[in-house]
């Protein structure tokens, strides 16, 4: 293990994500949950909604794989190549492999496709009177090959079979003997012997991929072309108590539990249900998420072109909230209740029709706000592009240095992040049962939403006023960020303690 630790500390010392408590190599234990809890106590600074994770490059994954192989090799006294096959066969559960091997070595070797006399290199043979069952060739002096199962084919067919599996189907660990009904796995020595170097490289690459796929604590970053993998100790069984958001070195934030884009505070199972519901109700959803709305006063059609929800009708100058369509005055004051669904359905819900209408209305309430933040987040992203321009203009007009205008970028980032969080708070709220902690949650949500709208509005100021608003903007950014932390802390603590009551089953 020491070599493993060394390599980690070498590679990761300057890495912001690198925590030093457990290296990749030590995580085979079944009691990973334990590890995870321990980690929490070691770092009191970590927030309730944060999880420990590390980011690894392709190269590091390869090396760590190698060090596992070497370690097992030294324990079992077997050649590295065989240990690699054994480890893959055991899905890299080192302890289980060692235990099983100690119980009955031959049996384990047989099971993994490594026969008794495996130490002799696989080789090609010429067999008298041979006819290949695949191509029907029976020429004399034909090179043939068979694995331990003795299903013999001509070299060309065997090669072509392997190439088509590796290149066309992207298979590596599950390639079986070409014979019908034979489930012997083709080992890597066979592949090395039979296929050209280029295909062999692809094979090795695929093996590397399966290493990550086989390990529950590793997951590839789902961003396009990203080659990093994230190591996190959260297991599927914990996903109802924690939402493990991780952040890849490529900049992509995603959920370690389901691979979907970051969705705190909403647990994975609710995200899945919610997205399915939105998809099923897409016709209605299409209708409500249509890009235009009418001014509540003069019925002019209005299109939203910025992230801010404070709308002013060009025609009649009526100021209203894009989300609840109520007058805007209330949004700056304690009358703010745009985020709260009014449960007035009780008395109306006598007959089934009223009930279903109420439930649709309820869904639309949450969906509307969810879709709106989603839309705003996209617009805010466009804004981010414009921010760069604004920063440049501001530099030249106000004489500020590049460093001094960074607050704009920071504000823009926080804004986008908060919209993302807000979006998912509505999916979360949709499945919440109504009780006292729900009210506290809604208050937190309200505070965050109000703050976000204010920051968003600041952002839409013309460039010449931006310089004067620097302090206000920085304060607001910090405040908004704090409100987000409060929302996330509150929901995460409740999830961990299983305090929340949902209308659906989380598991």
């Amino acid at each position, binding site marked *: 293990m020491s070599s493993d630790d060394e390599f980690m500390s070498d590679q990761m010392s300057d890495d912001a994500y690198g925590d030093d408590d457990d290296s990749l190599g030590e995580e085979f234990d079944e009691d990973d949950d334990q590890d995870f809890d321990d980690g929490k106590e070691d770092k009191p600074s970590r927030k309730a909604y944060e999880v420990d994770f590390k980011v690894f490059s392709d190269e590091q994954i390869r090396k760590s794989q190698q060090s596992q192989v070497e370690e097992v090799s030294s324990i079992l006294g077997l050649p590295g190549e065989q240990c690699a096959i054994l480890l893959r066969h055991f899905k890299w559960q080192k302890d289980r492999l060692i235990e099983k091997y100690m119980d009955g070595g031959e049996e384990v070797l047989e099971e993994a496709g490594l026969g008794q006399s495996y130490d002799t290199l696989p080789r090609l043979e010429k067999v008298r009177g041979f006819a290949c069952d695949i*191509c*029907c*060739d029976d020429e004399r002096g034909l090179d043939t090959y068979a694995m331990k199962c003795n299903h013999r*084919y001509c070299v060309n*067919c065997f090669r*072509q079979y392997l190439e088509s599996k590796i290149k066309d*189907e992207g298979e590596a660990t599950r390639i079986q003997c070409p*014979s*019908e009904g034979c489930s012997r796995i083709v080992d890597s020595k066979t592949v090395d012997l039979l296929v050209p170097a280029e295909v062999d490289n692809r094979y090795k690459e695929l093996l590397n991929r399966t290493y990550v796929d086989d390990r529950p604590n590793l997951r590839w970053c789902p961003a396009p072309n990203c080659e990093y993998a994230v190591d996190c100790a959260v297991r599927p069984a914990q996903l109802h108590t924690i939402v493990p958001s991780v952040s890849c070195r490529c900049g992509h934030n995603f959920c370690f539990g389901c691979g979907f884009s970051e969705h705190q505070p909403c647990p994975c199972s609710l995200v899945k249900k919610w997205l399915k519901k939105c998809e099923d109700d897409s016709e209605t959803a299409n209708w409500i998420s249509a890009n235009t709305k009418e001014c509540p006063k003069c019925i002019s059609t209005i299109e939203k072109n910025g992230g801010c929800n404070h709308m002013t009708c060009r025609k009649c100058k009526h100021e209203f909230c894009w989300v609840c369509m109520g007058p805007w005055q209330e949004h700056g004051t304690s009358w703010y209740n745009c985020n709260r669904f009014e449960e007035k359905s009780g008395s109306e819900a006598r007959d089934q029709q009223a009930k279903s209408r109420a439930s649709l209305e309820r869904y639309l309430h949450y969906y509307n706000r969810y879709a709106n933040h989603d839309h705003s987040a996209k617009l805010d992203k466009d804004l981010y592009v414009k921010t760069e321009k604004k920063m440049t203009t501001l530099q030249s007009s106000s004489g500020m240095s590049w460093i001094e205008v960074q607050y704009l970028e920071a504000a823009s980032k926080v804004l986008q992040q908060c919209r993302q969080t807000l979006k998912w708070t509505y999916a979360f709220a949709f499945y919440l049962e109504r009780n006292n902690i729900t009210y506290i949650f809604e208050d937190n949500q309200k505070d965050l939403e109000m703050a976000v709208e204010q920051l968003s509005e600041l952002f839409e100021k013309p460039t010449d006023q931006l310089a004067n608003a620097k302090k206000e903007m920085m304060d607001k950014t910090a405040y908004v960020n704090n409100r987000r932390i409060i929302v996330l802390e509150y929901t995460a603590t409740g999830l961990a303690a299983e305090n929340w009551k949902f209308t659906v089953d989380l598991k």
Partner: protein
Amino acid sequence: MAQAAKRITREYGEIEANPVAGISIRPIDEDMFKWNIELTGPKDSIYAGGTFKLLLTLPANYPFKPPILSFQTKIYHPNVSNDDKGSMCLGILRSDQWKPSCKIMAVLEMARGLLLEPNPDDAVETTIAEQFKTDKSQFEKNAKQWVKQYAK
């Protein structure tokens, strides 16, 4: 290609030498990569009395890739797509389960076996599969109706 042709010719010869009742084959042209197939509904099945025309297409890299089998005669069956393609995609017809040592005859026998015993757990037509599981008599009625209508 030449390799594939050799193997296909060999297989054709084998089938001709040992014909299987209820299955008849006829390559469409000389290059042998497309075959017309005729299956008769097995006697004890709901498809009894019907004759089903199928098209077998062998890929250029046969036998490393599986043959493609499609029903040209309409059939009410959970494993055959109910469209103008009549395609099937299960068992050894899927490239991850196909082995180069599998033979065309095995594919045809599997197809005929499915007439005797549909496989609702690997269905293309999920509504038909559902009916097969929950309302067998209605399923049989529909299937027989289709045999009468399309496969006589």
